[in-house]
């Protein structure tokens, strides 16, 4: 009847008004859908904000999530890009314990992952990495033995590939970050 549950990615355009984030978050809570990640930010249009929401759902639930989002008066457009060619990125800052002896190893790992060192202290390094969730997870995994002291992640932002894009704007040309191509896994 239904295919299995999977992580769905929704791009949601909303009116940039106070309280809209609460409305969206409240809807997911009320309908008992668990948000995996939610990001919100400005777009090329000042009156429009853009959210990327990832949520575990089967196809039928995903359709209902979309329909329920549309019931919010301030929601302009919902695009479920789960099955569309798209780019999804997460940004993390990871503070790793890095005393003199191990510092070269940590730097080496950062280099392999094309991560940047953004802060250097006596006993620690702070690494910034942008990429897919998987890529960041992998970096965190290999850094863990050195001691991850602190970490912050932004949550996923996503966009359809190519020129065509749904949304209240036409000029959504995506330029692929060539450097990342070898590690980025496209959907």
């Amino acid at each position, binding site marked *: *009847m239904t295919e299995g549950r999977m992580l769905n990615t929704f791009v949601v355009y909303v*009116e940039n008004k106070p309280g809209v984030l609460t409305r969206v978050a409240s809807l997911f809570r009320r309908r008992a859908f668990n948000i995996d990640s939610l990001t919100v930010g400005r777009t090329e249009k000042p009156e429009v904000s853009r959210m990327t929401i990832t949520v575990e759902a089967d196809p039928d639930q995903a359709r*209902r999530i979309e329909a329920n989002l*549309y*019931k919010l008066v301030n929601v302009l457009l919902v695009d479920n890009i789960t099955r569309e060619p798209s780019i999804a990125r997460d940004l993390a800052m990871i503070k790793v314990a890095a005393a003199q002896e191990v510092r070269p190893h940590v730097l080496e790992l950062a280099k392999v992952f094309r991560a940047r060192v953004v802060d250097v202290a006596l006993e620690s390094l702070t690494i910034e990495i942008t990429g897919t969730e998987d890529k960041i997870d992998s970096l965190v995994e290999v850094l863990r033995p050195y001691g991850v002291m602190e970490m912050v992640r932004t949550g996923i932002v996503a966009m359809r590939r190519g020129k065509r894009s749904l949304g209240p704007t036409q000029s959504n040309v995506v330029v692929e970050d060539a450097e990342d191509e070898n590690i980025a896994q496209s959907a």
Partner: protein
Amino acid sequence: MTMKMTGAQILWECLEREGVEHVFGYPGGAILPAYDALKHSRIHHILVRHEQGATHMADGYARASGRVGVAVATSGPGATNMVTGIATAMMDSSPIVCITGQVGSRLIGSDAFQETDITGVTLPITKHNALVTRADEVARTIREAFYVARSGRPGPVLVDITKDAQQASCEFDWEAAKPQLPGYRPDLSPAEAEYVRALELLARAKRPVILAGQGVLASGAMGEVRELAERAQIPVALTLLGLGALPASHPLNLGMMGMHGEAWVNHAIQNADLLLALGMRFDDRVTGAKESYAPLAKKIHVEIDPAEINKNVKVDVALVGDLREVLRALLPRVEPGDRSEWLKWIEGHQGDAAVRDIQSLEDNGHLYAAHVINDLWIETRESNTVVVTDVGQHQMWEAQYYKHEDPRSLVTSGGLGTMGFALPAAIGAKVARPEAEVWVVVGDGGFQMTMAELATMVQEKLKINVAIINNGYLGMVRQWQEFFYERNYQSTPLLSPDFVRLAEAYGIRSMRVTKRGGVVPAVRAAREHEGPVVIDFRVEQEDSVYPMVAAGAPLHEMIRRPSPLVETAADD
């Protein structure tokens, strides 16, 4: 043309332009500027006794008339008292607009006196809400509120207006304040392919049943539903809120489905090969156990709210759009059908009715609630009557024994099942339709929740008849305790005041009936009396509503009325 006005003046001006003639409200500090400006308005303000009452009145007004009802309250406790009424309207898709005062905009967030974040509180129980902090936002927000409340799937909208926004002045320009809701699209319509699939299923069906819900009334599709049923010879089962969508006397009208629906109706659904759901949402009270619901049936769902599709029951075809428009597009393409075999099969099951033939039941000295409802129906059937029911056993008996012929002749809280709804909702109904004969059918429990509104009724000189079905119990809960909790009547026996003397204290004509023979004379006396009347019907204390599908049980497994009460063919 524009002119300078205060936010408060703009508020009333906009309500007038939206067609509002009556508002139900209660004043307080944060809404005082609005009340002060009311003196310049043609709008009649009805002073309630509790803000919950104001919301139910607005709701009853909307349900009885189809027009948007309006309730007004102050900030803090005034606003929070509205919550139950708003949730009630939300569950039953009733178009109301609630206006609340809010503390001054500079005080917001400071826990100022009587500050409550009411837009936050009502977020999940409104179709939409808004906080207005500037006078020049009042007009647009009010226009948007009315537009959202009545379009698409109707629902409650709350507008919270700060005191300073009411006091400040600005240019008022109605034209420039047009709704600007770029994301709101209430007017969906189905794709051609969906029509084709629906028509195929219809043509093939041998045992179809139409399930008609409140959406029929909301979209005004009574004529279209009737035409469809007659042309294709499809029997029609109704939800509680759908009663009146097709006359009870219509030969294709089966009656109410669901938990307390008649046996043959539920059997027809369980044996159908096609369900055509029109403006209903497969609530658990009408489906019983989902796994065993109408297992043989293909399902077509005509519904205005896409979020309802496949929510409770998986359907084969969904036609998302306004019911009336969808049926108008569908009807010319529907083949006339002959389903006499299927209709005969259903008729055969009508002998299996659980409804007592109460007319032939001898008068054994007991007064059953069913007697009261039946006799009330017989007496009032010829007139333009609106029955407003509360929640409990009496509500179900009313639905079973009062044969509703007309749309909007029953007003009741279905989805939320809000006790205390009836009396205030009836006040709203009477205000909306002064020419109608309005009857309240209410339990002794629910009546005591909002009986303070008797004073509102008297103050407004409203001719409303109140029938208290007084069984000395929170009857519906007692029934569940009898069936499922070994008759442990914990906290359901109920002490009541002397309702006759209580009513008299309000200056209301009142009487008590304890025998069946007293029902008709009391109803007649009430109808003849010019002012409002309260009748205390002392009915059988431990009577139960039959048949009953236990919560979560399959729809065809009904608890039946035990003898010695007679079970006969469909009552008439």
